[in-house]
């Protein structure tokens, strides 16, 4: 029987093996390398043959490996065949590979050779399996928590995200959800706020912690979901590179929040309306009685004159009645004003910048509508003297007014600019509240401070009248800028504490 393999070279056998193999002589040089090994390590055959095996591992392991190899050569028998050891190999291009190595020493003639097997496939299978398990664990955890993960490459403007996130955006495949599509599906009203948050964390001096809440419009059915995204911006050499974070569907929470805010705003309006209607009713009664008497007395006098039946006594009584009742009406008004201005007006030193920020927060949480505040504060402005609650009320009223005016005109982006500065001409603190709304026509502008004047269907028209009264009660003034050509601009002043 002839050996059918007698013509087969060891190189051919070598190349047929699926694992990478090297044959190394006792001087540690490569004698043979199969094609899998050459491919793995990235060497052409002519380069790898004769190479010292230490050249195939990173610099830091080489010296140690030489000692190890010499010890191994002295006593190769002690190593059982095929036992494996974890090593780090280095490919020709410098890339490091974690590998399991099997060493099989044998003698050919008088020389010792060692067959080195790289168990790459096993290694990969193992790591792939463990990766799969950990990915599955992550997926389950994300699913349970309703969390999606995203990874935004801010250099190349590319976006990577998981299935759950794609579903939120209405995309069936991850490929569908590129960065452009991602942005266009964000609700137009929320785009600016999200972009400015992105700009903020792109500044290396910021805390780099991204948090944005915005609506996403599903293109399939135009349904709207609220998303909360939290992440961290990563930097390289001071340049933002990646934003990695998680997104969370918070629609239910938002709906509940909106409902609560609406109810709170409605309750507040109802209460204000009730107070206003009761106050107005009391004022009306106080004034209507003397007016009714004056009207009757006057008609008596007029009738007497017209009919030449002047009874001096009756005429005198009628006119005296008129005077008395007119004075009574005036007296009632003075009493009413005194009553309204009563109450312990505690004036204290206030940090106007803080009050402005607080008013913005109150206005935002009161459910009047969304707006984008732009604060232009004077950092070292001296303290002003005023009643904290009343100054807050002035600001909140102005903000509410602006938000509602912009909302009513259908503006998608409501920006309100609040400026705090020192007015050196009058030596007072000067606050400006400017909205991006439609402004107002001259007739409205003329009447805007009148009590009970309102352009809003549900308004009672007391907000600006009260605000002006409060500004005056605190020693300042409140007025509408007549020259403003974009939006409505209100100014008010307050005296400094010192």
């Amino acid at each position, binding site marked *: 029987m002839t050996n059918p393999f007698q013509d087969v070279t060891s190189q051919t056998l070598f190349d047929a093996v699926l694992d990478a193999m090297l044959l190394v002589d006792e001087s540690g040089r490569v004698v043979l390398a199969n094609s899998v090994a050459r491919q793995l390590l990235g060497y052409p055959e002519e380069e790898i043959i004769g190479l010292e095996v230490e050249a195939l591992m990173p610099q830091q392991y080489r010296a140690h490996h030489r000692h190890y190899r010499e010890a191994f050569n002295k006593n190769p028998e002690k190593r059982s065949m095929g036992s494996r050891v974890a090593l780090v190999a280095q490919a020709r291009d410098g890339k490091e590979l974690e590998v399991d190595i099997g060493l099989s020493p044998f003698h050919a003639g008088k020389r010792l050779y060692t067959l080195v097997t790289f168990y790459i496939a096993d290694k990969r299978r193992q790591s792939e399996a463990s990766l799969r398990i950990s990915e599955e664990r992550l997926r389950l955890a994300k699913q349970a928590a309703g969390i999606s993960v995203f990874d935004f490459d801010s250099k190349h403007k590319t976006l990577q995200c998981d299935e759950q996130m794609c579903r939120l955006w209405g995309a069936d495949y991850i490929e569908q959800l590129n960065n452009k599509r991602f942005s266009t599906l964000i609700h137009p009203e929320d785009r600016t706020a999200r972009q400015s948050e992105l700009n903020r964390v792109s500044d290396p001096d910021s805390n780099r912690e991204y948090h944005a809440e915005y609506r996403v419009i599903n293109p399939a059915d135009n349904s709207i979901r609220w998303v909360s995204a939290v992440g961290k911006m990563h930097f390289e050499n001071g340049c933002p590179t990646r934003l990695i974070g998680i997104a969370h569907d918070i629609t239910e929470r938002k709906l509940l929040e909106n409902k609560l805010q609406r109810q709170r705003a409605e309750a507040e309006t109802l209460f204000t309306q009730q107070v206003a209607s009761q106050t107005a009713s009391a004022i009306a*009664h106080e004034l209507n009685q003397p007016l009714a008497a004056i009207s009757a007395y006057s008609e*008596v006098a007029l009738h007497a004159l017209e009919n030449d039946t002047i009874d001096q006594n009756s005429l005198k009584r009628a006119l005296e009645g008129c005077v008395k009742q007119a004075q009574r009406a005036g007296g009632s008004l003075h009493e009413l004003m005194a009553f309204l201005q009563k109450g312990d007006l505690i004036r204290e030193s206030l940090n106007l910048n803080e009050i402005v920020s607080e008013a913005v927060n109150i206005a935002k949480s009161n459910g009047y509508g969304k707006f984008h505040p732009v604060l232009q504060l004077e950092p070292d402005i001296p303290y002003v003297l005023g009643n904290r609650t009343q100054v807050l009320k002035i600001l909140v009223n102005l903000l509410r007014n602006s938000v509602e005016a912009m909302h009513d005109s259908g503006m998608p982006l409501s920006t309100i600019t609040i400026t705090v500065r020192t007015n050196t001409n009058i030596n007072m603190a000067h606050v400006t509240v400017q909205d991006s709304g439609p402004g107002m026509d001259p007739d409205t502008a003329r009447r805007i401070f009148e009590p009970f004047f309102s352009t809003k269907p549900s308004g009672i028209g007391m907000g600006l009248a009260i605000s002006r009264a409060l500004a005056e009660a605190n020693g300042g003034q409140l007025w509408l800028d007549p020259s403003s050509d974009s939006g409505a601009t209100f100014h008010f002043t307050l005296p400094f504490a010192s």
Partner: protein
Amino acid sequence: MTDITDATVFIVDDEPAIRDSLLLMIEQENIPAIAFESAELFLAACQPEQLGCAIVDVRMPGMDGLQLQNALNDRHIQLPLIFLTGHGDIPMSVRAMKAGAIDFLTKPVTREKLLSSIRSAFMESGKIHTEEVNHHDAQSRLSALTSREKDVMLLAIQGFTNKEIARQLDISHRTVEIHKSKIMHKTGAINLLDMARIAHEGGLSC
């Protein structure tokens, strides 16, 4: 019975200036007027046969205008009422008008409106008074009738013939004729139609 020849305007208002100015206005027309500062005081002074009307403020401390209206109705005092109110409260005015008010006026009221309301109220008061007088007259005529005569009268005004009346009451035809002639005599009715009117005004029913 008090003197009912003078129709008088009663002003019921807690506000002195309103009472005074309205008194002046009404007296200027030579109409007698008396003012009361509360509904209770007016109720105490008011007589059932009083001619005229009352101008009543809706909102008063103590008994208010609508409560006064109920109290007057309870006492069968049919004095027409004109309500005055500070502000036109529609549900309240509907209630007042349904309970028989003449008018519901808003302060300040013009002379013209007030006097025209007073005139309507006086006409209504006169009508009520005439009805009262006729009622008393008819009642006194009916009171002279025996109960058998009242039975005959009721059947007669329903259109039954003497024969049918006789059969129903189980009396003779001749007796019915005698009862009828006595009824005509006692009530002063000149014919069957007149007899029916007297029975209606006097409140006679079966």
